[in-house]
C-alpha cells in the first residue's frame, strides 16, 4: 500500500510534465509543417492532469488509512546535489497538507484543462498553450510535493516561469509581454527573499538535512533572531508569489493571459503557493509570533487595499483579480494568526469558487468575443443562463454568504483573528467582507442584469459549448459544498479539514465561547448583507459607466502605486543602467586605461621631437649623459 503511494508520489508531478514535453516536442517538430490535429493535443493535454488527479486521490486515501502520527510518505527519487554538508535530494513528500493541496490542484487543474479545450479552440498555437499548462501543473505539483525547500523552490520558480509564458501568451501585443515580464520580475524579487531565507536557514540548522522533516526536528535549535529573519525572508517570497503588499502589482496585469490561465494560475493554484509555504513552515512561524503578526497585518492590509481597488474596476477580470488578491490577504491573515488550517481551508474553498468565477468570466468573454469591460455588457442573464447561475454561486461563495463555502472558510479566519486577540485585524476583515460583497455583486449585476450596453455584442452572445459549461457546473457544486468539509462544531460539524491537517501544521487553537463565535459570524453576515444591498440598490436596475472623482478616481487608478513603483524602482534602474553605460563605464571605469593610452601616445609624440635629426644634438645628448655619469663617478672616487 505504502509502496504504491511512493510510486505515485514520483509519478504525480511527472504525469503533466511528460505531457508537457511530449506536446512541446510534437509542437516544435511540426510547427513548420503539417500540424497534428488539435483533438490529439486536447486528449494528450488532459491525460496527464486527470491521471495525476486520480493518483492524488489514491495517495490521499492511502494516507487516510494510516494512523495519524504516521501520515507522512517520503519518496526520495535521487540525490539532486550534494556538496559538503549540503545534501539535497529530489524527494517528494505526502503529508496531510500536501495531499490535500494536490487533491484540489489536480482536480481543478483537470477541470480547467477540459474547459480550455473549448475556450482555446480557435487558437493558432493550441499545442503550445497546453504544453505550458501541463508544464505549469507539473511545476505546481513539484512545489507542493517537494520534500524540502529547495525542491519546493524548483516548483516555485517553475510556476513563475509558466505564469510568465502564459501571461505573455498573446505575445504580439507588447502590453501582454510587459505584463508577463512584470510578473516574472516581481516574482523574482520575492524569490530572492526565498533563496536568502533558505540560505540562512541552511546555515543555521540545515547541515543535518535540508528537508522538512529534519528541519522540523531541528527547528528548536534555531536562535530567535535567525528564525525571525528566516520567517520574514520566506514571507517576502510568499508576498511575491501570492501577490501581497508590496509585491501584489503583478497580479492584476497578469490578467493579460488567456482566461483559463487566470483561473488556474492566478486564482486557484499558483498564487496560493505563498500561503502553502507559510503553512509548510509553520514550525518556524510558531516559534516567532512576531513574524506571524507581520504576516497577518500585511495580509489584512492587502485584503483591504485590493478590495478598495476592486470596487472601482471596469474590467471583469480585473475585478476578479483584485478579489483574488483580497482573498489571499485573508489567507495570510489566517496563517499569520497561526490559524494555518483556516488559511489552508480558505485556499481550498477559494480554489473552487475563484476558478469558477474566472471560468465563468471566461465564458462571458468568450461569448462577448473577447470583450472584458463590464460596462459594455449587461443583461446577459438571459443569453447565458448556465454561466449566470454558476457565477452567482461563485459570487455568493466569494462574498461569504452562508452556507456557501466561502462563508465557512472566511469566518474561520475571522474567528481565529478575533479569538487570538487580533481585534483590529478582525474588524478590518469584516469591513473587507462587506466590500467584497459589494464589488462582487456590482460585477454580477452590471454584467448579467439591466439592459445590454452594447447591442451588437449582446446579439451575438451565446452560451458556450458543454466542454466549457460542464466544468463550470462541477465547480459550482464544489463552491457550494466545499465549506461543509470543515463545518465548525458550532453547526455540529467535525472540522474535518482542520483535524486532517493537524499533523502537518502547528495550529494555534483559539478557544472562545459560543456567544463570541455567534457574534463574529453574525457580524460577517451583516457585512455581507450591507455590501450586497448597496450593490443591489446601485446596480441591479442597470447603471452607466460612472465618472470617477476624488477618492474614487484615486482608487480607480490603484492609488498610483504602479506609477510610484515605476518612479521609484524602474526608472532609477534604467537610468542607473544608462548612466553606467554612457558615462560611468567609458569615463570612470575605463578612465585610467584611457588616460594611460592617451599618455602613451602623447609621450610617444614627445619623443619624436627629441629625435631632432641634427647629429650635433645627438652628440650633445651623449656628452650630457657622459658628464652626468662622470659627476656621479667622481663622487665614488677618493
Amino acid at each position, binding site marked *: 500500500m505504502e509502496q504504491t503511494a511512493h510510486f505515485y508520489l514520483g509519478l504525480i508531478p511527472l504525469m503533466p510534465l511528460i505531457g508537457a514535453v511530449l506536446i512541446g516536442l510534437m*509542437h516544435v517538430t511540426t510547427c513548420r509543417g503539417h500540424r497534428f490535429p488539435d483533438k490529439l493535443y486536447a486528449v494528450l493535454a488532459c491525460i496527464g492532469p486527470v491521471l495525476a488527479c486520480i493518483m492524488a486521490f489514491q495517495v490521499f486515501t492511502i494516507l487516510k488509512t494510516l494512523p495519524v502520527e504516521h501520515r507522512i510518505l517520503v519518496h526520495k527519487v535521487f540525490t539532486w*546535489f550534494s556538496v559538503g554538508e549540503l545534501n539535497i535530494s529530489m524527494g517528494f513528500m505526502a503529508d496531510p497538507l500536501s495531499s490535500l493541496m494536490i487533491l484540489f490542484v489536480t482536480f481543478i487543474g483537470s477541470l480547467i484543462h477540459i474547459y480550455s479545450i473549448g475556450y482555446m479552440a480557435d487558437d493558432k498555437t493550441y499545442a503550445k498553450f497546453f504544453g505550458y499548462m501541463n508544464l505549469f501543473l507539473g511545476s505546481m505539483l513539484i512545489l507542493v510535493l517537494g520534500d524540502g525547500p529547495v525542491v519546493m523552490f524548483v516548483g516555485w520558480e517553475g510556476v513563475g516561469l509558466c505564469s510568465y509564458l502564459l501571461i505573455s501568451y498573446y*505575445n*504580439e501585443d*507588447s502590453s501582454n509581454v510587459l505584463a508577463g515580464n512584470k510578473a516574472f520580475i516581481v516574482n523574482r524579487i520575492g524569490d530572492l527573499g526565498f533563496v536568502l531565507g533558505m*540560505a540562512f536557514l541552511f546555515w543555521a540548522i540545515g547541515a543535518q538535512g535540508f528537508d522538512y522533516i529534519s528541519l522540523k526536528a531541528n527547528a528548536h535549535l534555531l536562535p530567535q533572531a535567525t528564525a525571525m529573519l528566516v520567517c520574514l525572508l520566506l514571507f517576502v517570497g510568499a508576498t511575491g508569489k501570492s501577490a501581497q503588499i508590496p509585491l501584489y502589482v503583478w497580479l492584476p496585469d497578469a490578467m493579460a493571459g488567456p482566461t483559463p490561465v487566470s483561473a488556474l494560475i492566478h486564482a486557484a493554484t499558483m498564487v496560493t503557493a505563498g500561503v502553502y509555504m507559510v503553512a509548510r513552515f509553520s514550525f518556524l512561524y510558531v516559534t516567532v509570533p512576531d513574524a506571524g503578526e507581520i504576516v497577518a497585518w500585511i495580509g489584512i492590509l492587502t485584503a483591504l487595499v485590493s478590495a478598495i481597488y476592486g470596487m472601482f474596476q471596469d474590467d471583469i477580470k480585473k475585478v476578479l483579480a483584485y478579489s483574488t488578491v483580497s482573498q489571499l490577504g485573508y489567507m495570510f491573515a489566517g496563517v499569520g494568526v497561526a490559524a494555518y488550517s483556516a488559511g489552508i481551508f480558505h485556499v481550498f474553498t477559494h480554489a473552487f469558487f475563484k476558478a469558477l468565477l474566472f471560468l465563468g468570466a471566461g465564458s462571458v468573454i468568450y461569448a462577448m468575443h473577447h470583450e472584458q469591460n463590464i460596462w459594455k455588457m449587461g443583461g446577459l442573464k438571459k443569453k447565458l443562463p448556465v454561466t449566470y447561475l454558476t457565477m452567482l454561486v461563485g459570487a455568493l461563495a466569494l462574498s461569504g454568504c452562508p452556507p456557501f463555502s466561502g462563508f465557512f472558510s472566511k469566518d474561520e479566519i475571522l474567528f481565529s483573528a478575533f479569538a487570538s486577540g487580533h481585534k483590529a485585524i478582525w474588524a478590518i476583515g469584516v469591513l473587507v467582507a462587506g466590500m467584497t460583497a459589494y464589488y462582487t455583486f456590482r460585477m454580477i449585476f452590471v454584467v448579467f442584469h439591466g439592459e445590454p450596453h452594447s447591442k451588437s455584442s449582446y446579439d451575438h452572445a451565446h452560451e458556450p459549448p458543454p466542454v466549457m459549461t460542464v466544468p463550470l457546473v462541477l465547480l459550482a457544486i464544489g463552491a457550494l459544498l466545499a465549506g461543509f468539509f470543515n463545518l465548525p462544531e458550532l453547526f455540529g460539524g467535525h472540522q474535518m479539514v482542520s483535524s486532517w491537517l493537524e499533523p502537518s501544521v502547528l495550529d494555534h487553537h483559539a478557544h472562545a465561547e459560543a456567544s463570541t463565535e455567534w457574534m463574529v459570524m453574525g457580524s460577517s453576515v451583516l457585512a455581507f448583507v450591507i455590501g450586497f444591498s448597496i450593490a443591489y440598490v446601485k446596480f441591479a436596475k442597470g447603471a452607466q459607466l460612472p465618472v470617477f472623482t476624488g477618492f474614487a478616481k484615486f482608487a480607480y487608478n490603484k492609488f498610483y502605486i504602479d506609477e510610484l513603483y515605476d518612479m521609484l524602482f524602474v526608472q532609477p534602474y534604467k537610468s542607473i543602467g544608462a548612466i553606467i553605460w554612457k558615462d560611468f563605464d567609458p569615463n570612470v571605469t575605463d578612465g585610467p586605461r584611457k588616460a594611460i593610452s592617451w599618455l602613451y601616445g602623447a609621450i610617444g609624440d614627445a619623443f619624436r621631437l627629441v629625435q631632432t635629426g641634427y647629429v650635433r644634438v645627438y652628440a650633445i645628448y651623449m656628452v650630457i649623459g657622459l658628464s652626468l655619469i662622470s659627476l656621479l663617478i667622481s663622487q665614488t672616487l677618493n
Partner: protein
Amino acid sequence: MFEHIISSMIFLPIIAGLILLLTPVTKNGARAMALVVSVAVLILGLKLYTGFIGAGGMEFVENYVWFPSLGINYTLGVDGISLFILMAGTVLFPSIFLIFTTKSKGYYANLLIAQGAMAGAVCAGDLMLFYIFWEVMLLPIFFMIGLFGGEGKIAATLKITLYTIAGSLLMLAAIFYLGVAFHNQFGIWSFNIVNMAALKLHGTVAVLAFVGFMLAFAIKIPLFPFHTWLPDAYTEGPAAATFVLSAIMAKIGVYAVIRFVIPIFGAEFTRYALIMAYLGVIGMMYCGFAAIAQKDFKRMLAFSSASHMGIIALGLFCMNIQALTGSLFQIVAHATSTGALFLFAGILEERMQTRKIADLGGIAGRAPVFAMFFAIAMLASVGLPGTSGFIGEFLIILGAIKYNVAIGVLAGTSLIIGVCYMLWMFQRVFFEKSNERTEKFRDLSAAEVLAFLPILVLIIVMGIYPQPFIKKIEPAARIQINTILHNMQVADANALLQGTNLEK
C-alpha cells in the same frame, strides 16, 4: 594515442589548424576538416571523461622533462577542476563548426588553434607550459576579431589584446619570481604547480606576485573594474570568437585562480579574498545594470556574461566548499548557456544583418524552434531551477551568505538583475510584431538544430541531475578548500602568536 590522450586533445586541433593555415584548402574542406577534428577530440574527451575517477588528484598525467636546466617540464593532467572546463570546450566546439558555414578557412583554423591552446592551458601542470598556452590562446582570438569582426574591430582587437597581454605579462613576472624563489628555497629549478605549493612566500614581494597573478586572471575573467575590454571585444568579434571568449576563455581565468592562486598564494588569497569577493559582486551588479541600457543585443549579452562572471568569481573568494563547487559547476553551466546565447546572437546577426534590438521583433512567430532554444539558454542563464544555471548560482549564493552576509545578499540580487534585461531583450527580439526584416527570418536548419541539441540537453541534464557532475568536481574543490582552511589556521595561529608576544 590513448596513453597521450591529453596531448592528443591539445595538439590534434593545433596541428590541424596549422595545416589549414599552411595549405590551400577550400572553405568547405576546411570546415569539414575542422568538424572531423573537433569530433575526434570530442571522442577522446568522452573517453577521458569516462575514464576519470574523480578522487581529487591529477589523472591522465603526462610528464616529460623539457628544459632540464630550468626545471621546466612538459606536464599535463586533469583533475576535477580542469576536467569540466576541458570538457565544456570539447563538447561545444563541434557545434561551432556545424553552425557557421560561410567563413573562410582562417576562421576554422583559428578556432582549432584556440581549442587546442585552451585545452593546453587547462591541463598544464607546469607554470611555464601553462603560460605558453595561456598566451597562445589569445592569438587566434586576436586574429578572429581582427579579421572577421564588425566595424570597430581594430579598436576592439587592440583593446582586448593589449589589456590581456598587459595582465599576463605581469603574471609572467610573477611566474619568474616564483621559479627563482623556488630555486632559492629548495636549490632546484621547478615550475611544477604541485611543487610550487610547497613554497613559503611572505612579504611585499609575495603580495606583488599575488597581484601579478590576480591581475592577469581578473582581466581574463573579467573582474570589475577590468572588464572594459569585454563589451567591445564581445560585440565586435565574430560569433565564434565571442563564443570562445565567453564560454571557455573567461572560465580559464577562473580556473587559473583556483589552480594557481589558491595553492601558491594561500595566505594572500585569504587576506584579500573579501576585496575580491566585493569586486565580483559589484561587477555582477554593475554589468547587470549596464546591460539594461544596451541597444545592441550582442553587447547586452556581453554585459550579461560579464555580470555572470562576477558571480562565478565571487564563488571563488567565499572560501567554502559550496561556493567553490558552485563556481566550478557554474563555469560549465555558464559556458553552455552563454555560449549558446552568443551562438544564437551570431546566427541572428548573420541572418538579420543587424545587432540592434530595435530592428528586430516577432521572431518567435517566424522561428519557433529558434525562439524555444534561445529561451532555454536564456532561462539557464538567469538561473531557473531545472536548468544548469540554478545549481551553481544557488550554491554560490549559499556559500556567499556563509562567508559574508552583505555579499551574499548582494549576490542574491543577481536573481533579479539578470532577469530584467533578459526578459526585456527577449520581448523586443522574439515577441511583439514582426517587421519586414524579421519577416524573412529563417528558422534553424537541421544541422543547426543538431549542433545546438547537445548544448541544450546538457543544460537540462545538468539542471535536473547534476550530482554526477558535482561528484567529480567536489573532491578537487575540497582539496582546495582544505588548503585555504589550513592557511587560515596558520594565519590565525600566527596572529595569536604575535598577540601573545605583544602581551608579554
